[in-house]
């Protein structure tokens, strides 16, 4: 056997075992988009506890009025209502069963540090163990779905400038931000010559994965540019980004990640209108555009929206809110059992606040996400344990 044949044989070997697995595994067309709201968004003004007098007493300047009032919250259930900025986007999805919320969700990390708590979530490791800072939980999910490191059959991608911690680890996951995309300047021949310089170096994988993704994106966006010439409506911001994400995910990628910033509202966050309302509006438009663009694949798609922590239940001295604890996770999807506010809950009252300042965490993020991932991808216990070691998945009945 010469060197060339040997290489071929080595490359083929994992493929065979992998094909065998594939046949046995169900639900491979399942898709997941993980959206991280960096900065700790004010969940109490997203999912408004309209039945709580304590809520209105705690937020004299920034509370969202009850449903029916002018600019009031949008009714969801007897206890909860939605921020009015989501009137045309997420509110209809909730009532058609394509959206649900999980309040009192979060970590047991008490640092109230953005960066520490974001890391905690992205690593998805038990909190009092020594952390492996090279292993994010979505990377472990891709690993376990692929079964073998060398053969990515569940393509994953981060739609970010940098590869986020959540995707770092044993499998090379590509990344490419889609906010603005230019034409590639390096042609096919040059790409090959450049890739050859990296062969056998630690950067070999990122370099070749980068060229592959670049070609995918160029192909998808050629269509967009033609379409843009025909209709004059220009989409921008997160809405445009989310549309592009959908275009790539429906054909090419099963697992995606994107982050959205601008949620750290210490000062002047506004109420039904104002700064935070604008952020919700843009996010809602983006997620609705994503669901539209996914087309028939939306049925098999689950979108999870999380943030590192909630904010103080009471407004601060500057009509804003400070770093808190429990948050609200969102779950969207064409095939989910939406129209519910799920998970463990307690009455919103001063006595139930955590440290008399924050929403408590009753739905621990690993249990919640573990339960969602298990159902979405049909994970075995062993596979789930690889993603979230030692977790007891929560059964929230959403997927």
């Amino acid at each position, binding site marked *: 056997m010469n060197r060339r044949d040997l290489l071929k044989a080595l490359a083929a070997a994992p493929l065979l075992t992998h094909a065998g697995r594939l046949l046995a595994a169900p639900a491979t067309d399942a898709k997941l988009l993980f959206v991280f709201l960096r900065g700790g968004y004010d969940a109490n003004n997203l999912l408004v506890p309209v039945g709580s007098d304590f809520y209105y007493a705690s937020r004299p300047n920034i509370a969202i009025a009850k449903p029916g009032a002018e600019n009031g919250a949008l009714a969801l259930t007897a206890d909860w209502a939605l921020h009015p900025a989501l009137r045309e986007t997420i509110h209809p999805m909730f009532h058609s069963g394509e959206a649900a919320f999980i309040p009192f969700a979060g970590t047991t990390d008490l640092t109230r540090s*953005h960066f520490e708590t974001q890391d905690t979530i992205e690593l998805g490791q038990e909190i009092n163990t020594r952390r492996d800072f090279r292993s994010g939980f979505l990377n472990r999910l891709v690993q376990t779905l692929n079964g073998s490191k060398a053969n990515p059959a569940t393509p994953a991608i981060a739609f970010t400038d940098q590869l986020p911690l959540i995707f770092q680890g044993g499998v090379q996951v590509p990344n490419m931000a889609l906010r603005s995309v230019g034409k590639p300047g390096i042609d096919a021949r040059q790409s090959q010559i450049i890739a050859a310089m990296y062969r056998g170096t630690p950067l070999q994988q990122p370099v070749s994965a980068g060229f592959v993704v670049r070609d995918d994106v160029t192909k998808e966006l050629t269509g967009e540019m033609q379409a843009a010439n025909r209709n004059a409506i220009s989409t921008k911001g997160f809405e445009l980004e989310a549309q592009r994400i959908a275009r790539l995910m429906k054909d090419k990628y099963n697992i995606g990640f994107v982050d959205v910033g601008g949620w750290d509202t210490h000062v002047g966050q506004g109420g039904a209108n104002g700064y935070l309302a604008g952020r919700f509006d843009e996010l809602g438009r983006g997620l609705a555009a994503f669901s539209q663009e996914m087309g028939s694949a939306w049925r098999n798609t689950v979108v999870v929206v999380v943030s590192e922590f909630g904010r103080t239940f009471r407004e601060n001295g500057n009509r804003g809110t400070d770093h808190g604890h429990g948050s609200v996770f969102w779950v969207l999807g064409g095939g989910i059992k939406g129209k519910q506010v799920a998970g463990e809950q307690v009455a919103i009252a001063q006595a139930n606040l955590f440290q008399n300042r924050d929403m408590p965490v009753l739905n621990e993020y690993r249990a919640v996400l573990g339960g969602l991932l298990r159902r979405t991808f049909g994970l075995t216990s062993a596979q789930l344990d690889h993603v979230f070691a030692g977790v007891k998945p929560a059964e929230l009945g959403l997927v």
Partner: protein
Amino acid sequence: MLERVSWGVNGGSVRQVQAQGWHAWLQAQLHPGKAALPPAIAAQIDAMTISQVPLDQLVVSMEQKRKESAGVMDDMAKQQAQKDYQQELNRLAREAATRSLLLDVYSPNQLQQQLSWFWLNHFSVHQGKHNLRAMVGDYEANAIAPHALGKFRDLLGATVHHPAMLRYLDNEANAAKRINENYARELMELHTLGVNGGYSQADVQELARILTGVGVNLGTDTPKVKPALQSQYVRRGLFEFNPNRHDYGDKQFLGQTVKGRGLAELDEALDRLSRSPATAHFISGKLAQYFVGDNPPAPLVARMAATFQQSDGMIADVLQTMFQSPEFRQSLGKKFKDPMHYVVSAVRLSYDDKPILNAGPMLNWLSRMGQPLYGHQTPDGYPLTDASWASPGQMTTRFDIARTIGSGSAGLFKTDGPQPQEKVAFPQLASALYYQSLQPGLSPATRQALEQAASPQEWNTFLLSSPEMMHR
């Protein structure tokens, strides 16, 4: 080693080291005098508004513009006035970033420039908030750069008293009974002790109380202060300590009582924070991560932290300990460049002796690679590890940029005014420097790629795309 201590090797820096000898050159880097800039670069910088108008004048006049624009009655005229105001802010921030990059490329004080970026990133502010675009230039030039190699305590104090920081982390809104703990938390978590540095939520709240009344005044009026506290009022430029807003109670901070007495409490707190062993360790670890590698060896960090404490936080001494270490030497050539290092080193190599006239393209490249100056939204600054940057998307973007720089003038010589006499075609990277210093270090694979180049432009593109150009 030159590659690591500077923003990147070029002909000029090699000649300097050869002339002065390595030891003298490094000492000059650690203890720099005034930078002698190429006249064309000095002229560009001197012509900037931010070089001519002091910060307080600049901001007061910008505030006036903002208020005037808010008061315009006609809708169209109002829109125009607000647009003008925003564009002026953008222009000021662009001046700041341009000045920063020109100095990185052309200042002989390379280590000071690298440390200025490092500290700007450590005490990170985001230009998008409020009117910070008018402040970032002064913040970098007057709060950060002069202390970049000096005492950490001085550096810390300069950032605490700068309006850019006080506005960015909301301390201007922090007052007695209306506590905003944002700055207090980051001051310990990110700037001094580090997240596991041994402070509690109670310490955050107490430091926030110490910081009450520490803020900014962007106008010309002086607030009314109770007569008994009048002598406590402080105003220096835009910095203001307003005793009316200060919580004069005693505080329990890091296990000790801080007597409530006004602005002096802050100095006491900063003394304690900067002299804490946790700070010495945290800062040393971060410097080592920037200059040595993702997981710097613990013994090296311990020695650096010891120097930090012995020298009362003298940054040049801490760096000297690091530069002399075998761990540092062993790491040379293995650190993956972040976008700043990639862009600046490529331009240094390309236009060493031909001063560029427009840093705009460099700003765009940094944005595309995700590391614009003053552009990190959150106060933790950009990550310093290789793992954070060496991603697939990053690599393809870099190859595109390599092509842009390698195959033409890349817009670096475009000016608003009259075009220069000499037309710049593309950089001559296959120079004497290349054959003497760079070529011997290239891998066979890189040499092979260079041999396949069909033109000098493509040769440049491949060299700037090579693994060797991605590391320092």
